[in-house]
């Protein structure tokens, strides 16, 4: 009879709907209603009062901080992580080259003027920012000057930017040749991909200060000021909200994700361990 509502980063859809939520219901008898959406949008909807879930599971620290700043939750527990990978279309004319690529080969393919890359809007979607961060880090790692600028063009390059729900769909259909994306999502859509080194893939909290902070993105604010942001590692956090309709079940849910049963499911769906500290 009981039920809780969980809002989670859109990329977690399959994991949540087919893995974690049914398992939680099986374990506790509490039904779970999931809402999958861009994590930043969810954070704003929640902090603005338009949405009242019991648990929020965003990717990266940013959205978690927005909700905490609104005083709606105290603690965000890291429950999983993922890494940036290079996903390419099996129908692309570059597919064979991607398949054979080793080490820095992919950067050469990315610099081919004929390639069509896709990414999401960095002003709206964390994933879109992480693509740019990863490209910058790759430039540093492989020592290719202004690699990111050459590959991505302007921050808001209309030729590359698509809405999130259509990006992987386009990749499947072969309209774009490749993108960088969360490994978890790429795996669940069964797309061919190439793993990137730790120094580029933004998954390792240990490299946060030393390596990842070298990447930065300067965005224009609404009021005309600029804001520079640095990446935090791709960690998924779970936070039970204070105003939960059933605080006990919410806490239970967070504990389930962090617990061994939950972690096993994360693993099965291609997620890494929940690294780092709670915030």
């Amino acid at each position: 009879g009981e039920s809780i509502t969980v809002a989670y980063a859109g990329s977690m859809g399959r994991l949540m709907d087919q893995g974690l939520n049914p398992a939680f219901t099986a374990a506790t008898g509490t039904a779970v209603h999931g809402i999958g959406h861009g994590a930043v949008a969810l954070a704003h909807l929640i902090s603005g009062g338009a949405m009242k879930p019991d648990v929020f599971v965003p990717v990266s620290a940013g959205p978690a901080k927005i909700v905490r700043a609104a005083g709606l939750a105290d603690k965000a527990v890291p429950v999983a992580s993922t890494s940036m990978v290079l996903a390419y279309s099996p129908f692309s004319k570059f597919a064979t080259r991607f398949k054979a690529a080793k080490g820095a080969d992919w950067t050469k393919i990315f610099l081919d003027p004929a390639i069509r890359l896709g990414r999401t809007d960095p002003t709206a979607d964390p994933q879109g920012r992480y693509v740019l961060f990863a490209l910058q880090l790759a430039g540093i790692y492989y020592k290719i000057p202004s690699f990111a600028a050459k590959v991505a063009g302007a921050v808001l390059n209309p030729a590359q930017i698509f809405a999130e729900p259509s990006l992987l769909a386009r990749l499947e259909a072969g309209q774009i040749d490749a993108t960088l994306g969360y490994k978890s999502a790429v795996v669940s859509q069964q797309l061919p991909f190439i793993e990137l080194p730790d120094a580029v893939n933004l998954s390792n909290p240990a490299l946060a200060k030393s390596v990842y902070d070298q990447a930065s993105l300067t965005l224009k604010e609404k009021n005309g000021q600029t804001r520079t942001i640095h990446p935090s590692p791709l960690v998924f956090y779970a936070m039970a909200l204070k105003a939960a309709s059933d605080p006990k079940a919410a806490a239970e849910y967070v504990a389930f994700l962090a617990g061994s049963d939950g972690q096993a499911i994360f693993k099965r769906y291609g997620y890494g361990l929940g690294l780092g500290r709670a915030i």
Partner: protein
Amino acid sequence: MGWDWAARSDVLRAAFLLFVLMFLALPLSGLFASGVAWQGAWLSAQDWASIATSLLGGALAMLVILLLGTPLAFYLARHRGRWVMLAEAIVLMPMLMPTLALGILLSVVYGPAAPLGRAFGALGVVLTNTPAAFLLATIYAALPTYVIAARGAIAQVPEDYEELARTLGDPLWKARLRVTLPLAGRGLSAALSLAWVRALGEFGVILIVAYYPAGMPVQLWTDVQDLGLQAVFPLVVVFLLVTLPVPLWLGLKARAA
């Protein structure tokens, strides 16, 4: 018509119509283009549940919309002046608002944090993520469409017939029911079609106010995120199959009348 067939201009006209129809039908070809796995493509229990939710909620919403919207459409059709303009502006606003914004505003007004939401909650009616919320969102999405379209249909019927029905003993409401509504039939059937389409297709408002119970558009959204593109095409086809009959039947009725 037809018997004074002037061959050349008719061929041109037919070609033009075919062009427009093919333009409209073109996206459908995408369904069959890129190797969709139709064999393994069965619908999940959730998909079926979303169809039931949409059809049931849609039908209920249409009932409410007919009852609330028809008198309002009559008012807008049969009166002039600044108050009518104001009323029309009020009807247009929920329609013109980006659906996302409407959803947000609804959640602000009817959500558990707002006085109204609390009042309903005290009565046991929760207006977020419940069937009641689904209905509410659908009504907000489709009512203005119905009112504006029905207003146009009713305004086209001359008042003479209505007046004559009154000389035959019908009070105004009855004259409108027995005479004006049937005479506006073709326009009203279009109004109902459009409202039905809007009710079933609504995504933006529902997304915020009633992600649960998931109707077809939300289910589609979830499926796209979870399963990718090819996997959702069967749902799209079923979606079309279950929603098309109502407006087609309405169109048929309108033409038979």
